[in-house]
């Protein structure tokens, strides 16, 4: 090599990362089905579920008003729908890992001089970018949920969404490392996504006005435990903080859990991918 090793190393890693990232994005753009899912899911949840259930969401139990809720149901589930859309797209994007293995493309990448970590990072960043885009599709519906967002809210929200997308795409890769068939992955990912979503206090609110003692009277204890141990609870909570300025937990907890998810799942994905 006549040129300096440093220039080559930089070009290899930057170019390789870009190529792998861009390939994921390009494939997602060319796949119409994925895009249709990304649009129809939030429409269903925001316009039909949200608007339909909106009138029933009041601070009353058996006709007796106990407290005033500072937001509508539509506003309440809006951040959760963003999380749902990101979750679906992130985890589904890991299908490309199975695809690559099945159709031999993985080998093409493995015989390149790129280290495994760079390959995996490019792939996850690509999937996360697509997922972030699908999250933004929901954001377009903000006016239907009567949300007026400042630039600062949006910036904060996007950062949290990006973190969430990265963590969940890594989780998808971890799952794809274990389940190697397309069909199995589809079934399993649904079995992961929906419970995570429903137990993240996304659609059924934990009543903000109740003390923890009162909450545990109203809700069964096992459900409370599941909700508290579900990392998505804190992700949705952080997004609520950004978009409707309401949080059940301390403000630092959401970002901390999101960063934790990103780091842990990426490390797990890398461990699995290095053995592949």
């Amino acid at each position, binding site marked *: 090599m006549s040129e300096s090793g440093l220039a*080559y*190393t930089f*070009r*290899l890693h930057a*170019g*390789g990362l*870009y*190529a*792998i990232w861009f*390939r994921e994005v*390009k*494939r997602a753009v*060319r*796949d119409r089905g994925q895009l249709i899912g990304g649009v129809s899911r939030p429409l269903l949840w925001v316009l039909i579920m949200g608007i339909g259930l909106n009138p029933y969401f009041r601070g009353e139990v058996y006709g007796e008003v106990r407290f005033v809720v500072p937001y509508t149901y539509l506003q309440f589930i809006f951040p959760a729908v963003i999380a749902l859309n990101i979750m679906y797209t992130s985890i589904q994007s890991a299908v490309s890992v199975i695809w690559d293995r099945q*159709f*031999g*493309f*993985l*080998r*093409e*990448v*493995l*015989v*390149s*001089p*790129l*280290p495994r970590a760079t390959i995996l990072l490019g792939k996850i960043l690509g999937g996360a970018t697509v997922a972030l885009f699908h999250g933004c599709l929901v954001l377009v519906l903000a006016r239907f949920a009567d949300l007026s967002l400042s630039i600062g809210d949006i910036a904060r929200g996007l950062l949290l969404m990006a973190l969430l997308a990265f963590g969940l795409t890594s989780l998808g890769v971890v799952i794809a490392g274990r389940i190697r068939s397309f069909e199995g992955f589809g079934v399993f990912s649904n079995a992961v996504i929906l419970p995570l979503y429903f137990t993240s206090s996304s659609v059924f609110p934990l009543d903000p006005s109740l003390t923890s003692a009162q909450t545990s009277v109203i809700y069964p204890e096992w459900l409370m435990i599941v909700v508290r141990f579900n990392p998505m609870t804190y992700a949705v909570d952080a997004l609520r903080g950004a978009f409707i300025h309401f949080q059940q937990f301390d403000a630092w907890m959401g970002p901390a859990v999101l960063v934790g998810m990103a780091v842990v799942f990426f490390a797990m994905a890398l461990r699995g991918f290095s053995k592949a």
Partner: protein
Amino acid sequence: MTAAIQIDGVSKRYGRTVALDAISFDVAAQEVFALLGPNGAGKTTLLHILSTILRPDSGTVTIGGVDALAHPTRSRRDIGVVFQEPSLDDRLTVFENLNFHGLVHGVPSALRRRRIGELLDLVELTDWRDKLVRTLSSGMKRRVEIARALTHDSRILFLDEPTVGLDAQSRDRIWRYIARLRSTRDLTVVVTTHYIEEVEACDRVCIIDHGKILALDSPATLKATYGQQLLRVVPHADAAAEIAMDYPDATIRPDGEMVLQSSGDVFAESFLARYGSRIRRLSVEEPSLESVFLSLTGREIRDQAATGRERTLAFGRQGGEHTR
């Protein structure tokens, strides 16, 4: 002359099956080196080890003077690989596939564009540059893969069964490209195949079976050393059993043809004297790599490729029970 590849005592087993048993050989720079063997002989396993995606259980592999097992990423800069199974992204265009390869190998952009243009020209796919790979025929895909393996500064090209499943015309083309490439750049080629006729043009041939090297030399030397005259006989039905009794070494091909290893003209004459009136067809085959393979492994390489359906049909032609 420096060796492009040095393999020393490479072994690999899958469970109890020994895929490679202490394989050692050198490949000289700018040589065209063929690995010949039936399916399951260990060719692909060896090629995967050489292309650093599979680690051997023991032994050393040196590529371009670098220990490929200790520094796989360094070795990968020097090698281009065309795998047996297609490994293109068929949802990307031809150009996108090649450009991706260039990027993940750190090829600077100006050089990348120029070289992709040249290579597409070489494999006669310039008009298909912006077509999605999935719209290409399998022969064209193979050509894209060969072009791709050379988009970076690869000095060693590994081809795993590059022509399997292709029609005769496409196979010729691929060998023509390889010949043309060797005249324009410093290139060592290691190719696996079970098409004997393709091996004739290679510099050296390594015949392997059951993970062991049976012979390694130039095609001419191999023929001189191991080659045998062959008698190909199609006997009448009644004579077949008798011939099989007399010549227990004879192999019977699925289409009813019997292949006898002849020791010379005397052998042929004595055979004709006995069975001359009871055979339908007879041909004498001068020493070829085919006969080298037969005498080394005791079976014909072509049989490996025959499918179950072909065998059944051949059985039927012989008057097998299906047609009775």
